[in-house]
C-alpha cells in the first residue's frame, strides 16, 4: 500500500463517517434484525428482587433522569412499571431532578393508561402515587429515612400524603422493601450512602449505559441487588417479561453501530501502524 493511499484513508472526510453511522442506525429501524437477547446476572438481580416481593408490597421508584436520556431510560422505566403492576405491587415515585418530574409523569401516565385499556385500571393514591420533585438530595434522603411523610408533605398534585392509603404503614424510607433507582447521573451514590447504609433499604440500579461500569463496585459490595444498564439492560428486562419493546428494538441499531465503531478503530489503527512503518523504513534508507 502506498503512503498516499494510507494518508487518504486516515484523512477520510468525516461526513462519510457520519453517513455510515446514520445508515447503520436507520437500516435496523426500517428492517429489524430481531436479534436474540441473553440475560445477564446483573439484570436478573433487579428482576428477581422485584419478582420475589409479595403481592401488595410497596416499592419506591426514583425517577432521576433528564429528557436527554429518555430514549435510553423510558423503555426500561416502562418495563419496570409493567413488572411492578403485573406483580400487583404498589408503586410510589419520587424525583430529585427538576426535569425528572416530567419524565415520571409521562411514563406513569403511559403505563396506567395501558393498564386501563387492558381492563386493569389503577387507582391513584391506592395503587400508585408520585411525590414529585423534592429538593435537598442527601439531606432529603436522610430525612426520608427518619420521617417519610414529614419529608414529602404533599405529592405532585398537592394532595396531603398523610391522607394517601398507599402510604399507610410507611413511616420511614426503611419501610419500603425495595428501591428501584432510574438514574442517568451519580444520584445512586446518595441513595446507597444515605439510604441503603443508614436504613438498610435494598436498591436496584436502572441506569444509562455510561453510568453502569462505575457502579459495579457497589454491586460487588452488596449495596445493589443488580444493575440494568442502558438499552442492553432494558432489552434483557423486556425479555424476562416476555415481550420485545423499544429497548430490544433499539439493540439492533446499537449492535450495528458498535461493530461499525470497532471497524473504524481497527481500520484507523491499521492505517496508522502502516504509515508509521513506512516512515521508519524511509528514515532507515
Amino acid at each position: 500500500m502506498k503512503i498516499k493511499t494510507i494518508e487518504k484513508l486516515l484523512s477520510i472526510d468525516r461526513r462519510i463517517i457520519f453517513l455510515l453511522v446514520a445508515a447503520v442506525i436507520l437500516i435496523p429501524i426500517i428492517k429489524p434484525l430481531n436479534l436474540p437477547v441473553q440475560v445477564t446476572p446483573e439484570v436478573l438481580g433487579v428482576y428477581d428482587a422485584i419478582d420475589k416481593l409479595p403481592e401488595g408490597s410497596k416499592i419506591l421508584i426514583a425517577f432521576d433522569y433528564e429528557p436527554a436520556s429518555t430514549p435510553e431510560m423510558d423503555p426500561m422505566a416502562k418495563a419496570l412499571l409493567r413488572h411492578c403492576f403485573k406483580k400487583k405491587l404498589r408503586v410510589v415515585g419520587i424525583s430529585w431532578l427538576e426535569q425528572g418530574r416530567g419524565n415520571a409523569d409521562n411514563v406513569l401516565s403511559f403505563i396506567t393508561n395501558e393498564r386501563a385499556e387492558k381492563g386493569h385500571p389503577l387507582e391513584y393514591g391506592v395503587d400508585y402515587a408520585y411525590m414529585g420533585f423534592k429538593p435537598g438530595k442527601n439531606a432529603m434522603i436522610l430525612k426520608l429515612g427518619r420521617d417519610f411523610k414529614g419529608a414529602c408533605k404533599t405529592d405532585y398534585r398537592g394532595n396531603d400524603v398523610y391522607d394517601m392509603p398507599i402510604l399507610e404503614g410507611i413511616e420511614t424510607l426503611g419501610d419500603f422493601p425495595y428501591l428501584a433507582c432510574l438514574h442517568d447521573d451519580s444520584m445512586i451514590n446518595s441513595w446507597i450512602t444515605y439510604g441503603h447504609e443508614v436504613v438498610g433499604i435494598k436498591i436496584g440500579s436502572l441506569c444509562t449505559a455510561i453510568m453502569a461500569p462505575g457502579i459495579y463496585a457497589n454491586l460487588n459490595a452488596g449495596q445493589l441487588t443488580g444493575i440494568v444498564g442502558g438499552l442492553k439492560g432494558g432489552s434483557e428486562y423486556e425479555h424476562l417479561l416476555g415481550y420485545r419493546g423499544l429497548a430490544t428494538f433499539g439493540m439492533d441499531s446499537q449492535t450495528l453501530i458498535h461493530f461499525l465503531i470497532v471497524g473504524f478503530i481497527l481500520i484507523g489503527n491499521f492505517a496508522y501502524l502502516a504509515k508509521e512503518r513506512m516512515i521508519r523504513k524511509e528514515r532507515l534508507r
Partner: protein
Amino acid sequence: MDFFKRKFPIMVVLFTGFVMMIAYYVPHAPFGPIWEGASDWYMIISAFALVLAFTSLIRTHYRKIREGKQGWGYSAVMFVCLIVTSVVGVLPGDKNPLLGNQAGSIYMWIFDYMNTPAAATVFSLLAFYIASAAYRAFRVRTIDATIMLIAALIVMVGRVPWGEIFSEFMTSKISPHLAVLRLDKLTSFFLNYPTVAARRAVYLGIALATVSTSLRVILGIERTYMGSDE
C-alpha cells in the same frame, strides 16, 4: 468589623459542623430536633439555588442583549422561552386545563414536544462524534492506549447480541476450550474486576479528600469560602 467578617463565620461553621456530626450519630434530644431543623434549612436553601440560577440566567442574557453582543438573538429566544414556560407552568391549572403543569397543559406540551426531543437529539449526536473520534484519534500510540483499546473493543463487541452469538459459536462449534475467550465473559471480567478495582481506589480517594476538606473547613483552616479580604 473584623469579628463579623472573619471570626464569626468560622465560629458558626465550627459549631454547626460539630453539632451536625454528633447529631448524625445521636438522634436524641437536643441533637435530633437540631438536625431536623438544619436539614429543613438545607432543603429550603437548595430550592433557593434554583431562584439564584434563574436570576443569574436573566442577568447574563439581559446584559448580552443590552450590549448587542454576538449571538444576542439566542438570548432573546431564551427570554421568550423562559417567560412562556414560566407563566404557563406557574399559573394554577384548576380552572383552565391548559395552564399549570399537569398532563395536557401547555407546559407539558412544551416539555414533551420541544424540551425532550431537543435534548435527546443533542445527546444522540454523540454517536456521530464518537464514531468520528474513534476513527481519527483512538490510536495504539502507547502501551496504555493499546490496553485501553483492546479492552474497549472486547467490551463493545461483548455487550451486544452479535458478540454473544459469536462467543456461543466459538465454544459450541469450534472448541469448548475457547470458553475462556468468550467475549461476553471477558466483558463481565473487565467490568467486575479491573473496573471495580479502579473505581474503589477513586471512591476511597474521594472519601478521604472529602473528610480532610470538611475538617479543614470546620476547624477554620480552609477559609476560601469566605472570599478575599478586599
